[in-house]
């Protein structure tokens, strides 16, 4: 496993002149050909970490290995890493060809090779034959593709993407997500992707790194992160969830909202206060007589596939996604399966 790592981030911290700590002791390794996403709200340090990898920020302390070499000693223009910038940063005075060929000209390829590589890169991003176009006569989605072509034409080992789809509207964004993912698999380049959009992270990534205030909260596959969030922040940030205070009576038994439930977690000790996470879609509505949890319907909104129902139990508002409807003001009951109850250390 060790030699599969392309980037190894060790104890990286970064504080800015004003005293803000953007990164606090970050430890993270990135595997070859992996699609890894740094996910978090704005100001969580994800962009700073990306800029550190690109070489635009120097960390205050720590080490980064790139193929077992010290990356921090290498200036940005010598790193085998290319970046797709948030606002694309395409050079306005150059046409599409000039932009994509920029890096190749520095590397002193001959004209025929450059022409061929540019044409190939344009083909990869689906803009074959656009060489002569000006940047300002292209749409946001097209500029985005040019920015990607300009980066991948240099055949980087790692491609950094800083919220590349942020400026696009929903439809284009969704089709670009699928395209980026298939591009990454075809090219065999390691992608480090920064976003605050949890849905984007879940659909594209092999690995998600959830960050908050300069610290890593959790590293894992999308399925792990969604199903087994490590703490309330991750649970809340990745999808919607009900986070309830509870008591872990003993291994695999938990009480909350006045009832006792079986669950699959253990190792918290006996009678320990914990946070219990239940996803809204894991709540099962059933008849009142059998239901361990009962409450009054406060609101119901039709969302298309399901109803979003808010139910009040002892002052806590449960969020429920169900295909069953209910009347506002009526009492409904529901139950939870043991594997849908996730226990977290109280945060």
């Amino acid at each position, binding site marked *: 496993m060790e030699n599969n790592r392309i980037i190894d981030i060790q104890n990286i911290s970064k504080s800015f*002149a004003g005293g803000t700590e953007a990164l606090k002791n970050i430890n993270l390794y990135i595997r070859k050909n992996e699609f890894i996403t740094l996910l978090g709200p704005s100001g969580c340090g994800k962009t700073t970490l990306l800029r550190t990898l*690109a*070489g*635009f920020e120097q960390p205050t302390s720590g080490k980064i290995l790139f193929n077992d070499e010290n990356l921090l000693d290498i*200036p*940005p*223009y*010598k790193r085998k*890493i*290319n*970046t797709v*910038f*948030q*606002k694309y*940063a*395409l*050079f*306005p*005075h150059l046409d599409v060809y000039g932009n994509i060929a*920029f*890096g190749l000209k*520095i*590397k002193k390829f001959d004209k025929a090779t450059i022409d061929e590589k540019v044409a190939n890169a344009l083909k990869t991003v689906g803009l074959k034959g656009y060489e002569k176009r000006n940047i*300002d006569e292209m749409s*946001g989605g097209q500029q985005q593709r040019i920015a990607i072509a*300009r*980066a991948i034409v*240099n055949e980087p080992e790692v491609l950094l993407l800083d919220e590349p789809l942020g400026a696009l509207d929903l439809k284009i964004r969704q089709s670009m997500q699928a395209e980026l993912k298939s591009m990454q698999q075809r090219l065999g380049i390691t992608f480090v992707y920064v976003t605050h959009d949890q849905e984007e992270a879940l659909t594209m990534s092999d690995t998600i790194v959830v960050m908050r205030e300069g610290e890593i909260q959790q590293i894992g596959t999308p399925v792990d992160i969604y199903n087994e969030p490590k703490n309330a922040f991750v649970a809340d940030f990745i999808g919607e969830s009900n986070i309830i205070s509870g008591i872990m009576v003993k291994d695999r038994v938990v009480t909350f909202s006045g009832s006792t439930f079986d669950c699959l977690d253990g190792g918290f000790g006996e009678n320990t206060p914990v946070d219990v996470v239940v996803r809204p879609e894991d709540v099962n509505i059933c008849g009142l007589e059998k239901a361990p949890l009962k409450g009054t319907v406060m609101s119901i909104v039709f969302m298309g596939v399901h109803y979003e129902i808010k139910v009040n139990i002892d002052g806590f508002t449960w969020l429920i996604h169900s295909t069953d409807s209910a009347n506002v003001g009526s009492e409904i009951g529901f139950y939870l399966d043991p594997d849908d109850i996730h226990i977290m250390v109280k945060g």
Partner: protein
Amino acid sequence: MKSLKRIYLLIIILFLYAPIFILMIASFNNSKYIGGWSGFTLDWYVQLFKDREIMSSLYVTLSMALIAAIVATILGTLAAIGINTFSKGPKALMLNISYIPVVNADIVTGVSLMLLFIFTRIPRGYFTMLLAHITFCIPYVIFAVLPRLQMTSSQYYEAALDLGAKPSYAIRKVILPDIMPGIINGALLAFTLSLDDFVVSFFTTSNVNNLSTTIYAMARRGINPKINALSTLMFIAVVLLLLLINNRTTKQEKALRKEISKS
């Protein structure tokens, strides 16, 4: 009410430009005296170009404007690039320091430069006048280049480095082309300012004269219609340059607005 507004505007324009028109008309007047019109002539213009004193000062003016514009543009552009990278506090300080010479009275600039040259025992002549012109042109170049530079996203520079460009290559191939409109505006402005400067020139030279100091010396000897012809030519040259600068600025603003409305 509307006609009143028009008349008011007309009066303003009349007061502003009447003296210059009288001067222009006088330059074509056959009579040596402004009082009466005795026929159209181009004689004064012919005499003007035969006058060796005027021709040599024309050479001084043009060569100096050219050199001062070039040097001030280079220094001003570099200064702007530097200032743009400063953080907020030092940036504001540098901008204010650069702005003082712009609002400072010419006479103060002129006298203080003269004192400096006397103090440092540099003989006053072409070289000192050139130094003075470069000095007062630099701030104008900075303020012409800086807005353009602030629009240029720092991402362009980083993108160039990211693609393998060394810092010097990135500045040459990405930053400079992008701020070129601002640089050219600054250069034109510097050229115009140097061309029609009198006060600073007067104090920083002794034996070498440019057009404005020559006209001043001639006018003290008595109004010669040659001066009218010369002044007319200078006025037209400066107006043309200013039109050029304004035209460029509006065009750039239009392009900019287009860009902004697109994104």
